[in-house]
């Protein structure tokens, strides 16, 4: 949307009107987004005292603590590894649905697509609650296990619950990203390979999978980023026993009232985002 020379002639007349029309949204963005985000960066260079008071003096103490304390090192590694695991599981669960949707058509396809999008419109609190109903000690799975004589298994308030819940919650994003990247997948190429004697497994490995790699990469980036920063599901299904970056940010901000540490961890999340994006762009460039 670059202005053409003809447009530019109109500028003096329009400019004050443009400023007037854009002023309210610029104010909201400045006061609710730019200033708070910059302030977050500033806050990470302060230090909270043992009493809870904060010293507004520039110091690297908070960052040093985050990088040297083994608790935080474990927290960061745990967040990244859990998010990677969830991304892989989400991909494995979403791929069949995306491929099925890509190959179906008509009304049936529209109905299935609505079923994929419907969970997206439902609050994370509601869906996480649904998982508690399924996984808790008197829930669907444990009562079924007990009925057939197998003992109950602990599935919530630990990493298992968080992993199952987040995998399901992120599936719609992955399915939509995969489908967006499935455009190059042409039935005729698959048929050609099959008619030349390739087994279904071989067709999948040598034709379907390579052609869908861009969708896989995009979906994985999206899910990883969402997993690292998700809060509601890890908090409720983790029951305070699973320590991830997002839950720690909340606890430091609301419970411990250590805003400098919370700020530093927030900026760390943004750095992880940036690294993931960089790796994604590298992989994409290497592939093309």
């Amino acid at each position: 949307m670059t202005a053409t020379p003809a447009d530019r002639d109109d500028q003096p007349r329009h400019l004050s009107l443009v400023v007037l029309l854009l002023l309210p949204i610029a104010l909201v963005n400045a006061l609710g987004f730019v200033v708070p985000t910059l302030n977050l960066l500033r806050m990470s260079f302060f230090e909270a005292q043992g009493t809870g008071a904060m010293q507004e003096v520039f110091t690297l103490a908070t960052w040093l603590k985050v990088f040297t304390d083994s608790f935080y090192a474990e927290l960061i590694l745990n967040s990244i590894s859990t998010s990677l695991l969830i991304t892989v599981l989400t991909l494995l669960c979403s791929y069949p649905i995306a491929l099925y949707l890509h190959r179906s058509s008509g009304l049936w396809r529209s109905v299935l697509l609505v079923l994929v999008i419907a969970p997206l419109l439902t609050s994370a609190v509601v869906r996480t609650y649904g998982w508690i109903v399924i996984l808790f000690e008197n829930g669907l799975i444990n009562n079924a296990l007990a009925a057939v004589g197998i003992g109950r298994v602990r599935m919530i308030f630990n990493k298992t619950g968080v992993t199952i819940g987040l995998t399901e919650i992120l599936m719609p994003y992955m399915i939509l990203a995969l489908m967006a990247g499935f455009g190059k997948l042409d039935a005729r190429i698959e048929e050609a390979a099959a008619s030349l004697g390739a087994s279904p497994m071989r067709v999948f490995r040598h034709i379907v999978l390579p052609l869908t790699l861009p969708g896989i990469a995009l979906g994985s980036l999206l899910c990883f980023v969402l997993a690292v920063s998700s809060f509601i599901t890890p908090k409720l299904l983790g029951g305070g026993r699973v320590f991830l970056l997002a839950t720690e940010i909340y606890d430091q901000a609301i419970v411990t009232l250590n805003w400098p540490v919370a700020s530093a961890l927030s900026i760390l999340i943004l750095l992880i985002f940036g690294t993931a994006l960089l790796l994604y762009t590298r992989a994409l460039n290497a592939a093309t």
Partner: protein
Amino acid sequence: MDERPISLPLKLLALTMFVFLLAPLLVVLPISFSGDNYMIFPPTSWSTRWYGAIFTDAKMASAFTSSLALASVVTLLSLAIGLPAAYALVRLKPPGAAALSSFFTAPLLLPTIVLGLAILIVFSGYGLLGTFQGLIAAHLVVTLPYAIRVLSTALSTLPITFEEAAASLGASPLTVFRRVTLPMMRSGIIGTMALCFLVSFDEVVLSLFLTGPRLTTLPVAMFHRVEQQADPMVASLSVLLVALTLAVVLIVDRTSGLARTFVK
């Protein structure tokens, strides 16, 4: 898209994954009709008592009213702020319109846990924590990007010829906007309002940072309830929430066509 018989293994695999995807939503309906005092699945008896409990629980009832009022105010303000901005960006094409538009949608790039903390720290200095004004301002930060996006798309797909015709016949710019542009943008405006309403009504992470003991929203109240005691009441609330979402989506679909509003 490609018409090809789908193999049986893929069908079965996709079906299994669909069950997994929809499971948490499917179990909520039966448990909302539980007659038990505590949560057990499947329920041992059935009743509608937990639906009644929502309205007798003073905390939930007031949280519901707050959420409804908040989402309504946020929706109207999003339209009042977003519409002029979208018009300026699309129709007046100021220099750097593309950059401005990315700047206005940038808050969506930030995870809400980070944005929530950032807003908490700044708002606490102005005494905005636990206030209605604070919640409105925070919600606007995340609804305006959607408003700008949907309204800009609606405006840029409108043929400009009608507006030019009206202007050449002597209508003032304001009259053209009021009598020609606005009526033609109807479906975009309805879509924007529905989207902003749902985003605000469902917002939980930002609200968690800004609500207090005196003022809370429905998703936050539900979050705390699940955190403390996950009883069947949350299920009946969830069913009502899903019904509300469905109602909004249906209204949009009836008045303007869902596909036209959200796709493109």
